[in-house]
């Protein structure tokens, strides 16, 4: 228990250090909360004073002696105090909420920035979901915590301090009795709550299973119909809906025990107060009013206990959310920005690759194409204006070479220089003007064609964009777009075919007018007419710059000035297509089998 509390405190400290505004002005907020909570004991205290001093003679049977004036004075005072307490409480709640929301906004922005700067290795498909949930649901757990749990700590903590203070002031013995009897309630509530949390988790899991299987029933509808399996999978959904019902029924049963346990402890405490109070009588300095007031205070004392134990689990959730967020912030960002950047002059920029080696950090569940992508001691020089094709089997390291050339990652050993300047000494802003990458599956944002193109160059005018299409011979294709530049591309560009997405990506890259273009070819097939356009656009775009194609199709190699053949991360062949195809070796073999598969006649 102490260990976990210590861990929680450490996490909290680190969190405050990451977002200092989280703790700003917290002292004043606590002070206001104390005043606000003291409003809750005004009524019991007023009743006690009214009974003992204003109404006391009525209790002795003489109703004419009731001191109405005193009661009125007392009540006016109480009402004024209630107003002050109300304002204080309002201010405290509002301050806590606003401060925490602003701090969480800062935390989010910090996370966006950090995650964008992480290297591509930390951005693989398996990781993406968790990165997204760090900035969404984990920050949300913190927000939930501050607006409910944190608030409960603030108000109920303050209330418990004040109520127990007032109770001790009335009668220390009765106060101790109440505290002593209520103590086990904390234990009982914790037990019930931890089972309740487990039951809620189970029902949430069951619910996500229902939602998941229903979604499958809908998205997989065609497949289910094609295989006449709708009924069977429908039954599965119903089965999971039944398990969800069972889990939720169990959770509500446990939840139903929670409130009455507070009730029963309340009855114990009040019974004890009544019994001991009556037994001791007036000799102990107790009055009828004090005893009645004490009964009311006892109910007030038990309320926050229930609420406080309830937020303990929320606290744990928030702490583990915070821990996960801090974990992301602790990952070092991708290739670090150069401390003393060297500016390169525009001009013919040769690329020099020297003794390049790379190995990925091992990770579970890597996708097929990423496994064993290791480069060993690769050295070569690419003069400006060369059209290079890098070929090799899946896993030969060609994709990794592309990533290193683009400085999406830094090599483990060796280095790359452009125009004589080591790539890690070039400021990122400049590097991205010199060198542009067109990735394998070009990503388009769910927006218009224009917006996707402007992603490269926000300042581009509509005319610039239209010109860019004609520069790469795509005018006819552009004119066929239903809404021209305003054509919406859909999620991930789904309204366009894979080939068309590549066309847009090429135009986007051409807007930058880079000296070096790195093309990671798509593996998926493209229909013939788009293929023709792509080839034409590529020819156009390659003119007057260095292009390095990570080639999956050997037709690209055929067209290139120079072919680099990789095998298991080693550069095994280097030459033109004509040279390599006649020389016995990997390339000639690859070309032969590829050629066979691309002929219609056997």
């Amino acid at each position: 228990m102490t260990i976990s509390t210590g861990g929680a405190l450490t996490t909290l400290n680190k969190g405050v250090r990451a977002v200092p505004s989280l703790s700003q002005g917290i002292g004043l907020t606590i002070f206001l909360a104390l005043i606000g909570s003291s409003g809750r004991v005004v009524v019991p205290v007023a009743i006690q004073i009214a009974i003992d001093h204003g109404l006391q003679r009525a209790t002795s049977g003489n109703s004419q002696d009731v001191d109405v004036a005193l009661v009125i004075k007392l009540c006016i005072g109480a009402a004024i105090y209630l107003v002050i307490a109300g304002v204080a409480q309002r201010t405290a709640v509002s301050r806590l909420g606003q401060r925490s929301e602003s701090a969480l906004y800062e935390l989010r922005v910090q996370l966006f920035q950090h995650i964008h700067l992480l290297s591509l290795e930390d951005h693989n498909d398996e990781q993406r979901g968790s990165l997204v949930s760090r900035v969404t649901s984990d920050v949300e757990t913190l927000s939930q915590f501050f607006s409910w749990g944190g608030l409960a700590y603030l108000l109920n903590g303050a209330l418990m301090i004040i109520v127990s203070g007032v109770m001790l002031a009335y009668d220390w013995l009765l106060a101790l009795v109440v505290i002593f009897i209520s103590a086990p309630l904390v234990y009982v509530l914790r037990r019930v709550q931890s089972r309740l949390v487990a039951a809620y988790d189970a029902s949430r899991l069951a619910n996500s299973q229902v939602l998941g299987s229903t979604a499958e029933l809908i998205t997989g509808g065609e497949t289910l119909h094609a295989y006449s399996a709708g009924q069977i999978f429908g039954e599965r959904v119903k089965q999971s809906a039944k398990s969800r019902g069972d889990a939720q029924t169990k959770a509500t049963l446990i939840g139903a025990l929670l409130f009455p346990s507070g009730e029963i402890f309340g009855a114990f405490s009040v019974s004890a107060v009544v019994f001991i109070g009556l037994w001791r009588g007036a000799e102990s300095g107790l009055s009828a009013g004090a005893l009645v007031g004490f009964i009311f205070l006892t109910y007030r004392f038990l309320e926050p206990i229930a609420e406080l134990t309830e937020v303990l689990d929320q606290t744990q959730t928030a702490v583990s959310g915070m821990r996960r967020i801090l974990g992301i912030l602790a990952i070092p960002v991708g290739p670090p920005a150069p401390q003393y950047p060297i500016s390169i002059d525009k001009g013919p920029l040769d690329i020099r690759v020297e003794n390049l080696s790379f190995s990925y950090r091992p990770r579970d569940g890597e996708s097929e194409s990423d496994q064993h992508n290791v480069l060993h001691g690769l050295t070569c020089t690419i003069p400006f204006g060369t059209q290079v094709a890098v070929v090799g089997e899946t896993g030969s390291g060609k994709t990794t070479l592309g990533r290193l050339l683009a400085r999406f990652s830094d090599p483990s050993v060796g280095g790359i220089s452009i125009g004589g300047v080591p790539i890690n000494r070039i400021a990122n802003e400049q590097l991205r003007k010199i060198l542009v990458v067109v990735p394998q599956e070009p990503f388009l944002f769910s927006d218009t064609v224009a917006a996707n193109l402007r992603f490269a160059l926000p300042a581009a005018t509509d005319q610039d964009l239209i010109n860019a299409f004609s520069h790469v011979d795509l005018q006819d294709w552009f004119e066929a777009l239903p809404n021209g530049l305003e054509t919406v591309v859909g999620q991930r560009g789904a309204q366009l075919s894979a080939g068309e997405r590549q066309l847009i990506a090429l135009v986007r890259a051409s807007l930058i007018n880079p000296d070096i273009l790195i093309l990671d070819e798509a593996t998926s097939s493209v229909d013939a007419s788009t293929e023709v356009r792509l080839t034409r656009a590529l020819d156009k775009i390659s003119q007057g710059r260095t292009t390095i194609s990570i080639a999956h199709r050997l037709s690209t190699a055929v067209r290139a000035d120079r072919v680099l053949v990789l095998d298991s991360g080693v550069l095994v062949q280097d030459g033109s297509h004509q040279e390599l195809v006649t020389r016995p070796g990997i390339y000639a073999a690859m070309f032969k089998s590829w050629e066979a598969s691309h002929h219609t006649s056997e």
Partner: protein
Amino acid sequence: MHGHPTSSGRFRRATTLIRSLVAYHPVLFTVSMVGAAVFAVCTVASSWLLRWIIDEVIVRRFDDDEFSLSQTLTAVALLMGLSLIRACGVIVRRSFAGRAQWRTAQSLTDGVVDVLVQQPPQWQREQSTGDLITRAGVDVDASVAVMAPLPYASSVILMMVIAAYGLISNDIALGIAATAVFPLLIALNVLYQRRVDRWFDIAQGELGSLSAAVHESFEGVTVVKAFGAENRETERLAVIASRVQSARIEAIKLRSLFEAALDFVPNLTNICLIIGGAFRVRSGDLTVGELASFIYMFTLLVFPLRLIGYALSEMPRSQAGFGRIQQLRQSPIVADPRKMSHHAGQSLVISSLSIGHDIDHPLTHNFSASFAPSSFNAIVGYTGCGKSTLLQTIAGTIPPLQGSILIPDSSICLVFQEPFLFGTSVRDNMCMGLNFSDIDLSWALKVAEADFVFQLPQGIDTLIGERGVGLSGGQRQRIALARAIVRRPRVLLLDDTTSALDPNTEISVLNNIRTELSDTIVIAVASRPSLIGMAETVMFFDVDEIHGPTSHVELLIQSDQYRLLMQAYEKPESASDDQVEGVQG
């Protein structure tokens, strides 16, 4: 309430909703209501008990200065006993209300599932997937949300009636004054819930767009990095995050105001009751115990009143959700096109067929074709010409607009280009509810060149998808192929199913299918020349007519367009051939 037409309409709609929901599990709901009634009666009784204890036990003890053990024990026993009964009432009320709520949710989900299972794909295509998922998930939850607080709300109303009677019969003036605060508090609560919920809804909506934008931004991280746009993207996301923040802050401001008001109003009422009580005690109309119980009673009702506000504010959401589910369940079942196809003969015969989704704009018009038994056929054409639609029409996923298709028998399998795999084991994905032996399954996987399955951690029983291993596009295609192959269908339709495979694997798969499923009519949409080369006949979708099925060579002669297309496919090779010859020469 009845004088106002809109509010009476609202009241009627609310009762209709409640009646429909309760009708699913009336017994559970009734038991819960009984528990609620016990709770209500005991709560009121506890305030009477408190009055008796104050007046008859406490005040007498301090006045007479005499300790009566029997009376004290009676007081304590009554306090504990009443609490115990009240606690039982709570347990019964809450557990049965929860049971009624979630069993109703289950019944609603079952109803939605029945609709989804019965409707054919063309119905689903007309619906938005997101909308259907929402109806099956969020709307079910929303519909039943009003059920849980309902027994509680009823018991609070019962308490209020008894308490109002008790308060008023005790002291008319004070009773009316205290009772008048109840509606005020309910109104304040409803107002609070509605207004604060609006901001929470806005925040929730903004959070949704934030999470979509974040997902997109992280997914496109390569592009973000390629153009050095990290800072720009952070700024863009920060703008959305700040909208979440400001909606939340508005909600918090409102909440802090209302919370303070909801604390203040009953406290102030209590203070007023003390003043009023002082006058009544002086005039001898009220005892001190009665006054204290008065205040206790009032305090007891304050918290439950807040939940009434909650229940009432749930009502519109529940109504909307339930309405949408009913609409889904009452939609007429569309006829299954598969029941319209005819089975006869050995060949697959298409006669005067028009296909497409719209009778006014058919993709192909009035064409006939025949595919011989055991033949391997390719379909070639430009994107969007209707190749996939033809396969789906043959498979019975889409009804033909006109004409008919004669199929040897009903064993027909269609494999989609982007196959759908379920988040379960490879085995379940292949069996789809049928039983196949391990031998058959391994055979099918081998034919589909999906041997990688045997290397997975649990082999064929490995879970795939979100909770299991991730598969590449090519791997998914091969499992989907194996799913069709294991059924040894008479007709196998491949909708560019091998597009994500490398050329060598593609050829092996197609060769395997040809030799292992020698009795099957295979019709494959081809986007690569290798498949065309293997096919016995090719069918070409030209701009305005359909050629074939006939041989590849015949088509080259028949259609200029086909020849052009083939040249486009082979262009890189012809260039390379020249070069190779050049080098050799």
